[in-house]
């Protein structure tokens, strides 16, 4: 008998097709019947985060999500998209914003909130806060007014207050015979003394968002009289060509050339943190969320926590700000999904989340309603000291990440290498930053 291959192949394909269709129909029927049984399937909401892997807040983030999923088991399920870095997160969210596909809850940093408002996904949170006095109490007036627009609308809510000074290695300071500097001249002189004593003074990095370097820069500007202070509290400044900025860039240029590690130019945050944690440098500008790392022997040298001190920036300055925080992007979704997303946002910014973030990553709560206990202060003396010394600060200001457009932040990391190698002057760099402002308009 002659085998008819065409018929054989056609029959086989038909069988596969029919099986597939049957499976699809079965799935659909199953979902329909589940729905009819009375919503046994939990409402799924989406959430994206960069606090994963080795991120300092990864543990706190995981605990919050786990506790939420446990508390709302069978009702709401958070589907998480993990992005491995701040930059990857921001870029992915911007791409999603272009197609109105932002997750139900997201962090609105570096222009993401503005895009969510523009594309119509962002929800005005003010009426929702008014409807829940308990939630509003834990957020507090300071954080609300920080993110509130002129028209009274509120599109994002922070879950922590940021106080950022710098950490220093007490042993290295003692060997070099110095104290935390009171002025910027003293700061540069201290760097020289540390260098003479055989230490590398500063843990800096210019890759990613140039975080540690830009904290020093913000401090140099923010403590430079009223003009500098006002500039560092201006959101989205139009021009970076001012005396405070140029003077600060000039000091940063010297620091990058003389007082930091050989890998600082182009390095990531992890490199700078590692240099401080392994006692290769004497100072790092960073927030209290770094404190748990000092006693983590998988990251830091044993006993480092006892050798670290915290200080205000010279001229008594401190980065004191609220974050942009979380946005609710459930506009246009079903009522069920909107309600579920709101529940998650409340949990993520509420009392319990603030407690977890304080405990696990040293992030300070938004208000005194979340008490920092004496036990906590005893167990975390650096955080307690930071809170105490922040009361002595003459200048409080924001950091570059908060005030600048994302195009400007990325311009910093592109141009710091040229500044460090003397290819451009501080004036030229300031002009490039001003030019980058136009790109974000």
């Amino acid at each position, binding site marked *: 008998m002659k085998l008819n291959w065409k018929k054989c192949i056609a029959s086989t394909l038909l069988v596969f097709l029919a099986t597939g269709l049957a499976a699809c129909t079965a799935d659909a029927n199953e979902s329909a019947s589940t729905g009819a049984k009375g919503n046994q399937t939990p409402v799924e909401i989406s959430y994206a985060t960069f606090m994963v892997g080795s991120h300092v807040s990864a543990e706190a983030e995981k605990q919050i999500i786990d506790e939420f999923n446990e508390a709302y088991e069978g009702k709401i399920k958070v589907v998480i998209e993990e992005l491995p870095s701040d930059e990857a997160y921001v870029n992915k969210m911007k791409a999603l914003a272009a197609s109105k596909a932002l997750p139900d809850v997201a962090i609105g940093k570096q222009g993401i909130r503005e*895009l969510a408002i*523009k594309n119509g996904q962002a929800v005005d949170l003010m009426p929702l806060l008014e409807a829940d006095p308990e939630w509003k109490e834990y957020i507090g007036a300071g954080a609300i007014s920080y993110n509130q627009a002129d028209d009274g609308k509120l599109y994002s809510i922070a879950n922590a207050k940021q106080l950022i000074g710098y950490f220093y290695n007490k042993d290295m300071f003692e060997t070099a015979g110095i104290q935390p500097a009171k002025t910027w001249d003293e700061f540069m002189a201290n760097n020289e003394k540390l260098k003479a004593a055989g230490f590398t003074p500063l843990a800096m990095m210019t890759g990613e968002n140039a975080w540690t370097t830009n904290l020093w820069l913000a401090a140099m500007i923010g403590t430079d009289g009223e003009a500098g202070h006002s500039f560092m509290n201006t959101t989205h400044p139009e021009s970076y060509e001012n005396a405070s900025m140029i003077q600060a860039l000039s000091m940063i240029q010297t620091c990058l050339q003389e007082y930091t590690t050989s890998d600082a130019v182009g390095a990531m945050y992890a490199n700078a943190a590692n240099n401080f944690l392994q006692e290769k440098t004497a100072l790092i500008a960073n927030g209290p969320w770094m404190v748990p790392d000092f006693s983590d022997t998988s990251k830091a040298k044993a006993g480092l926590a006892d050798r670290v001190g915290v200080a205000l920036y010279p001229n008594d300055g401190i980065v004191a700000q609220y974050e942009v925080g979380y946005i609710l992007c459930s506009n246009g979704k079903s009522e069920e999904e909107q309600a579920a997303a709101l529940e998650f946002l409340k949990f993520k910014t509420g009392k319990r989340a603030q407690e977890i973030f304080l405990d696990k990553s040293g992030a300070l709560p938004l208000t005194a309603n979340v008490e920092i206990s004496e036990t906590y202060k005893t167990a975390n003396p650096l955080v307690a000291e930071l809170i105490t010394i922040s009361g002595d600060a003459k200048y409080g200001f924001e950091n570059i990440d908060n005030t600048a457009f994302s195009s400007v932040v*990325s311009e910093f990391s*592109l141009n710091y*290498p040229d500044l460090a190698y003397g290819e451009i002057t501080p004036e030229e760099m300031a002009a490039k930053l001003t030019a980058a402002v136009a790109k974000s308009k």
Partner: protein
Amino acid sequence: MRKKNKWISIFLLPGVSIFIFVFMLSILMLVGTSFANWTIGSKITFAGFSNYSTLFTEDPAFIKSMMNTGIWIALQATIHIAIGVLLALLLAKQKWYTSFVRTAFFIPNIISSAALGMLFLSILNPQFGLVNNVMTKLLGEPFVQNWFMDPKTSFFSVTMTWLPYAGLVTILVMAEMASIPKEVYEAASIDGATSMQTDLFVVLPMMKNIIGTATILAATSMLQKLDIIMMTTGGGPGVRTMNMPMYLYRTALTDNNYGLANAQGVILIFLGLLTLITIRKIFKMDQED
């Protein structure tokens, strides 16, 4: 005959549909929106040629990214191909090391670009990188060089992450060489040709089409190169290692200017076509041997 045509149409339908709905419509949208002001959340408005004129008259960073892309295309089409072909000719001699070298040389081609970027970041790290440590041992004094971020070495360092690794070219050329009949080599030998003369005047001319194809692949790969640059320099210092894909990415995702980014996309496609046509002309690939 009519029945046969019907089957041909049916089998062509999926491919043609995918081409129309995935590629052609996308390209049409890309070209259309390149003439528009388009940022996220704002209305798309007609902008004429303003995106193109901005790129060519007011954006030195874009011009630099075009120049860098052009230089890298030229380097790939010459040095990269020369390395690959030379190695293929050497390996064809079937020496004891042939199999090892062929495998080792192909390894960079099977590693993902992102992983390769991380690898080079480590090898060229100024503090603990292999290169600086070897130099320190050789010189007997500390050798510190920030290969990727020093403006003097950044372009060279980025180029070295892809230029020498011509394993794909070698494999393609060797596969084509395997199809040359033994009689051709015997005839050349009888005529008194040396091994080098045989390679230069007999083998290479017969490899013209495959070398042309490999050149197209190598050159056009520079129009897609994004991941390694993103992992190593991000286009910096300044815009010294910025290429067109990286600049397009920044324009779209950092600046959110999709109209301007799409104009760059159109120019990128045009540059790709120009590269393709030029290489085909140089290798006379549209002519019969």
